[in-house]
Structures are given as C-alpha cells and as structure tokens.
C-alpha cells in the first residue's frame, strides 16, 4: 500500500516533469530541468574515463566477487574466490587447485556473502578485501594488487560461516561467527534433538599479519547454541569490542521459520575481544583437536599450497562471563552495524516494527554498574533499556542492514517494504525514504561501515527484479540501484544487473586501489619449479610416465609447438610460462580433450595444465586469448603414440617448417 502510494507519486511527478519540459522546453533552466538533466550526467562516465569508486560486490551463490565501477555500474571483473572458474583456470590449474582444498577434500563451490575491505585506524586502506564462504565455512583474502584470491582459511567447529568476515579497526582480526551451531569435538554423532545439550556456536578470531595479511585462527569463543547472523567491529571508543547479532536464542533445530521466532527478543553479543586476546595469550584457552585447511597462494612460485591443521585454541564459555555480554534485541536481529564514531550500535530485527539503537557508553555504564536483567547460559544479559540510546519508530517493514554517511545519518534497508530509509542518529528521526525495485537486501555507502564514509551514494542490492529488465526465462538477474545522497533527498540515478546474487558490498575511492594495481609479474622473480625463463629453457622431460613440458608463450608462438614421443598411459603436465613483460598481454593454453579447463597465463607467470591422453593421435593445442595479429597462428601439435611404442621423445619450434630457398 505504502509502496503503491510512493510509486504513484513518483509516476505523477515524472509525468509532471515531462510535461513541464514540453511547456518550458526552451526557456532558461528551471530547478526541475537541472534535476532531470543531472540524473544521466551523474552516472555518465565518458569513454576512456575512470569511475570514481571501486565497488566490490559479493556474488552470493556464484562464490565469487564482482568488481564494478561507480557511478557507472560497469562490471570490470569477477574475481574467482570459492568457486572454480574455467575462464581463468582457477581451481583447474595444478597451481590453483590447492586453494579450494578443505577438510572435506576439494570443494569447487561456495556461497560468498560479505566483502570486507581492510582498514587502518578504521579507514579503508585498499590493501585486501576479505570474503566469507558460507557453506563450507571459510574466509578468503583477496590481494588488491593482483585482484586475486591470495589465501583461504577453513573454520573448524563451524557450520555456515555467515557472521563473517567483519574486521576490527586496524584489521587485527577478521571474525567468523557460525550461523549453524553444531556438535563438536568427540560428540559429533549425536541425535539432532539433543541440540540444547550438545550444539555450540563458535566465533573465530582470525589474526591478520599486518604486513603480509597472512591469516591464522588466533582463538575461538565457545558460545551458546544460537545462530550468529552478522557482526561489526567497534571503532574509536569501542575499538576493543565486537558486536554479533544472533537469532534462534530459542535453540530450535527444526522449522526455524516458526520455532526461532518465539521470543520477543534475541541478542546482540558484545564481545570484548581485547580481553579475549589477553586470555588467549595468557594460555587460558583449551587446545582442541580439529581439522581445517589453510591455503596460501605464493606469488613468487605462482603456486598455492594447502596445509591441513589439527588444533585450535578455544576459550570456553564458562570462562567468558567477563568477556561476552548479551544485549536484548527485538525480533531475530539481522544487521548489527556500528556508526562511524563507534558510539552507536544499530540492531535490525527482521520482524521488528522499530529499529533499536544501542549506546556503547551506556553498555559500558551498565556493565560497570552490574545492570543486568538475567543470565543466558551463564552469560550476563544487560537490561535492554540500560543499553538503549533510543528507537527509530515505525521506520518500515523488515529492517535488515544499516550503513552511514559522513553527516550523522543512517540508511537502513527494508526487505518487506522494498525501500531505503534515511534517518538521523542524533534524534532518530526519519528524514527520507525511497523505493527499491525490488526487495532490497544489503546496501552500501562507500566507506559506510568505516570511520570515514565517503558518502555521495547509497547502493541498494536487490534480490528480485521481476519486470525490471528484458526477461531471460524463469531465471532473472539480481540488481543494484544507485542513489545519490548528496542532497536532503535520496535520488535514484541508475540500476544495473549484477552477476550472481549480491549480498553485501563495499565501495572505496578508486585511486586508493588503482595506484597499487600490478601490471605484470616480473619474469626474473618467477620461482616456479617448472618455469622456462626463455625459449632456450623450453624442453620436454620424461619422468617415468609423467611428461613435463616446460613451455613458453610469447607473441605469437609456443615453444615447443611440436612434441612427439608421448604415449597412452602418460600423464602430461603443460607448464606454460608467459614470457611477455607487457601489460595486458595474457596468453591462454588448451589442448583437445582436456578434462579440466583452459589456462589463462598473465605476463611473467607460469601455470600448469594436467592432461591424460586416452587414445593415440595428434592433438592440437592453441592460445585461447586473442593476443596479437597472429593469435590464430599461435598453435601446436602433440603426437600421442600407443603404450609401448618406440617413438622417441622429440620437441621443437620452427623445425622442418623453413621452406627451402626459392632457388
């Protein structure tokens, strides 16, 4: 109803606007004409010009992260993270397969929900962006020099890593709160109905080495068997604290749709991570037997390694009564967002008719005064009113997430009423609302979760598009919508389709990232064990039934491009080094019958395709990336002979193909 009225008004306004143009078309500019003319120019990025912001958008069920430009909405790249990517060979090349290794073996897919750009002193620093794997619990770190996944760490004692990968102010820690509580340790095979007794919710604190970004699970908090949903780190005065929303404090294990919505309030867990860190360092945790994979991509060897770890430090719930405090929060809170000053924590109950805003100072005062209303599994529950700054009354239906601008305003997304509502933190008054098309989930203000929002835009990420674009059968795109927030009123400027399902996204001024972007890998720094640093090093080596082809590619040929003496039963490894030292000149490689994918090899890089020929014959291979005017000539042949054949191993480039002199 509400939406129809809003829609009706905007239709009327636009028609009125159009009519006013008919009448005033050639008169001096009015306010109306300026407004309308601005909409296109505000998102127009002329050919060859760069966007003002990078927008890192989670791909949801495609397991990847999209890189878009703002304000244009142009898609630049899909960074493969948790899912295999035949386009680049990620997860198919021998070098990248270990990135997707887990305690469950090779897992070629996941569900990436939330990016988190690294911060220094609470401000985006543009070094890394983290992402969560929601299904097989993992956290990834993407290096923003290469726009590649540099590291993935699996999370033990977890199921569904949703409350992740939010970060502390100086990226000291990335957190990972489990959505599913699960039975752990040696009591894993238990009846589901023993949930209350056996299921635990764990929150992992993953340390991030300040220089390299290298991750390690520093410690886990063992907590009650609730569902952790979202989280935010404190800032400024609340630096030492982290806030996690949870639902299902009912501890339901079936039909959560109904059974996890029984209580009037669930909780925000306020965690003093500094204190937890001290406890961990003082040896107050328990080392528990677990299994999890830690995968690291080495830029020097161009190769990932996967290490299986078997121990994690757990701080037990019984020891956490002075570390973790619970704040009652109405109706299954989802978003749990901290404003730029670090003073306010906004909880968004999915089913709530209001938005509670908590005060960090009041939380501290309540803790100091012992102002608790109860205990929950031995953890102190702060009195709701004592923690509360106030509530935003009747803001909309189904509040989910809140971002902030640099002027003391908050922007909350409402799934059910499909709108963004702007309100003021100081007096909690609603200032403006705009419809979204349709059913917004997350939203993003550039720098919105940091101490320094860059403002200018808010972007809605919509789950449902119905009639918004040309139809593409039953499966339709999701979308992003860009609104300006420069003025008092939000203004819709653009909507654009996204790849995968966008959940959360972050945006950062382009120059903070663009200036660090790598152009090439230096060939002299290539330490791949099978590199060929020049055509003179190109060769084929037989080791038993393994054939190692040390191959080079440069415009516009492979060396070697003729290989004979391979037999059925051999396993062939094409180690292809791209000898180019020129920006934006990748070469591809693929061979007929390959059961994996292509390789896409960047300048100075070495990547390996494994290939097992099953029948004798001559197999063509070629460059898949249009590299040059003679790209179509960039090809070769591998001859495969029957097992036991006597064909000697020979190889070369340019052999026998020099025609005899004309006379």
């Amino acid at each position, binding site marked *: 109803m509400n939406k129809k009225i809003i829609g009706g008004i905007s239709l009327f306004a636009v028609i009125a606007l159009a009519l006013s143009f*008919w009448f005033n078309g*050639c008169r001096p*500019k009015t306010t109306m004409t300026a407004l*309308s003319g601005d909409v296109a120019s505000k998102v*127009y990025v002329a*050919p060859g010009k760069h966007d003002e912001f990078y927008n890192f958008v989670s791909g949801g069920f495609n397991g990847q992260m999209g890189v878009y430009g703002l304000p244009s909405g142009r898609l630049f790249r899909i960074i493969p993270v948790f899912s295999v990517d035949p386009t680049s060979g990620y997860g198919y090349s021998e070098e990248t397969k270990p990135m997707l290794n887990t305690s469950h073996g090779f897992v070629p897919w996941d569900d990436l929900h939330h990016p988190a750009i690294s911060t220094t002193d609470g401000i985006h620093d543009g070094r890394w962006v983290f992402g969560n794997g929601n299904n097989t619990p993992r956290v990834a770190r993407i290096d923003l020099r290469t726009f590649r996944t540099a590291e993935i760490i699996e999370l033990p004692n977890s199921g569904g890593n949703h409350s992740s990968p939010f970060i502390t102010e100086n990226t000291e820690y990335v957190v990972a709160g489990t959505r599913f509580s699960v039975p752990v340790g040696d009591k894993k095979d238990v009846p589901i109905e023993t949930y209350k007794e056996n299921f635990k919710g764990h929150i992992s604190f993953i340390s991030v080495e300040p220089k390299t970004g290298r991750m390690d699970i520093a410690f886990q908090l063992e907590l009650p068997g609730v569902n952790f949903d979202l989280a935010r780190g404190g800032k400024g005065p609340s630096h030492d604290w982290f806030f996690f929303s949870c639902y299902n404090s009912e501890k339901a294990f079936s039909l959560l749709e109904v059974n996890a919505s029984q209580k009037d309030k669930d909780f925000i867990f306020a965690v003093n991570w500094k204190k937890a860190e001290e406890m961990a360092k003082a040896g107050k945790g328990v080392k528990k037997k677990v299994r999890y994979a830690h995968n690291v991509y080495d830029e020097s060897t161009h190769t990932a390694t996967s290490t299986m770890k078997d121990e994690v430090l757990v701080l037990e719930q019984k020891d956490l009564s002075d570390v973790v405090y619970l704040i009652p929060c109405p109706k299954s809170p989802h978003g749990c967002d901290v404003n730029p000053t670090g003073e306010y924590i906004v909880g968004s109950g999915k089913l709530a008719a209001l938005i509670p805003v908590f005060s960090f100072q009041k939380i501290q005062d309540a803790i100091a005064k012992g102002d608790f209303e109860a205990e929950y599994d031995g953890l102190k529950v702060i009195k709701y009113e004592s923690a509360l700054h106030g509530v935003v009354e009747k803001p909309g239906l189904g509040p989910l997430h809140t971002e902030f601008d640099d002027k003391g305003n908050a922007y909350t997304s409402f799934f059910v009423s499909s709108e963004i509502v702007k309100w003021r933190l100081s007096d909690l008054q609603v200032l403006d609302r705009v419809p979204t098309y349709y059913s917004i989930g997350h939203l993003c203000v550039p720098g919105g979760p940091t101490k320094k929002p860059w403002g200018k835009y808010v972007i809605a990420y919509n789950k449902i598009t119905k009639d*918004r674009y040309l139809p593409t059968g039953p499966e339709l795109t999701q979308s992003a919508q860009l609104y300006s927030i420069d003025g008092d009123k939000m203004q819709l400027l653009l909507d654009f389709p996204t790849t995968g399902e966008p959940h959360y996204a972050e945006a950062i001024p382009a120059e903070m990232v663009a200036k660090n972007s790598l152009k090439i890998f230096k060939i002299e720094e290539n330490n791949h064990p099978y590199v060929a640093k020049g055509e003179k090093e190109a060769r084929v080596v037989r080791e038993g039934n393994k054939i190692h082809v040390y191959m080079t590619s440069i415009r516009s040929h492979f060396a070697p491009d003729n290989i004979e003496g391979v037999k059925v039963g051999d396993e062939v490894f094409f180690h292809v080094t791209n000898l180019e*030292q020129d920006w934006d000149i990748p070469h591809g490689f693929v061979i007929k019958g390959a059961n994996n994918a292509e390789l896409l090899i960047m300048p100075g890089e070495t990547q390996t395709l494994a290939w097992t020929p099953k029948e004798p014959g001559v197999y063509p291979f070629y460059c898949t990336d249009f590299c040059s005017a003679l790209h179509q000539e960039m090809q070769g042949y591998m001859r495969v002979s029957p097992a036991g054949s006597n064909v000697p191993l020979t190889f070369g480039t340019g052999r026998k193909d020099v025609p005899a002199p004309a006379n």
Partner: protein
Amino acid sequence: MITLNKTLAPMLMASFFVISCSQPAEQTAESTGTAPGPGQSAVVDEISQPNIVQVAIGSKDHTTLVTAVKAAELVDVLSNAGPFTVFAPVNAAFDALPAGTVEELLKPENKGKLQDILQHHVAVAVYKIENFYDGQVLGMVDGNNVTFSVKDGKVMIGDANIVASVPASNGIIHVIDKVILP
C-alpha cells in the same frame, strides 16, 4: 506497481528537450567528454618492457625515423600488440637519400607516400635474425615484397645491412643502414 519502464519514456522525452535546446556551456563540456581519446601510444606504463616505438624514441640514431613515424601517424599502430618486425634505418640512412627527400616526405600532403615507405619497413610476426635465409621473400605491411640475402652469416634486406637487433615488447627491431624503397 510502478517501474522504471513506465518512467523512462517521459524522462527520455524530457532529456530530448534538454538536448535540443542550445546550452553552449554544457554541450562543450559534453563534447569534450565524448571526444575520441588518444590512442594506445598514450598509455602510461612505466613497468612493462618498452614497445617498438618507445625503443625507437630512446635511440639517438633513429630521430629521423621517429619524426617520420609521427608524421605518418603510425605511432599508435606500432604501439599495438603486433607482433611486428621493424627494419629501422638509422639517421645516416635517411641522410644518404637525395637532398630534400626527407623534408619533402614530411610535408602533410605527402603523408600517404611517407606511410607507404615506412610500412615497407614493417612485417607482421616476429622474425628473429636466425629466421632469415638467403633468397627469402617477405611481404611487408605496404603490400610489397622484400628479398633477403644471407652471406657469411650477414643478413641483408634488399641492399641494406642488418647491423643490430633489439627486442621490444611487441616485436623486434632490426637496425639497418639504408632506407629500403618499395
């Protein structure tokens, strides 16, 4: 239920009016914004290996060639991915042409002629020195052939000697001591 589809049409009409009315300041800004940008030679890249044009610009023996390439508007072409083999006459080779030839070719009205001559010095593909053989005939970019001779390991293109070879990111430069005319 309102959608942008419905709102788009009137908005488009509106923008039509805005455009159709003369607003000099804005239009100037817009036309600057949409003007074709500079070509590939303008790419700022301090990291990559230099391309053929950049190598030539860095050579004090090839200032005449560089001037000619610029006059013939071949700078962007030779900054392309190629790969190219460029036979690059040294300054002395141009100096050896009849007096006034170079000055004449550099005149704007002779751009086509200059392009033909320069393109006669370019082949597509990378021909390393070891790829040439005696009697080899090679089609050049201008559409005419050149003939190579190899005597005692010395490679000649027409009557010009290859005196040095320099690799570049997008091909190779063979320095020659004469201008080869189509």
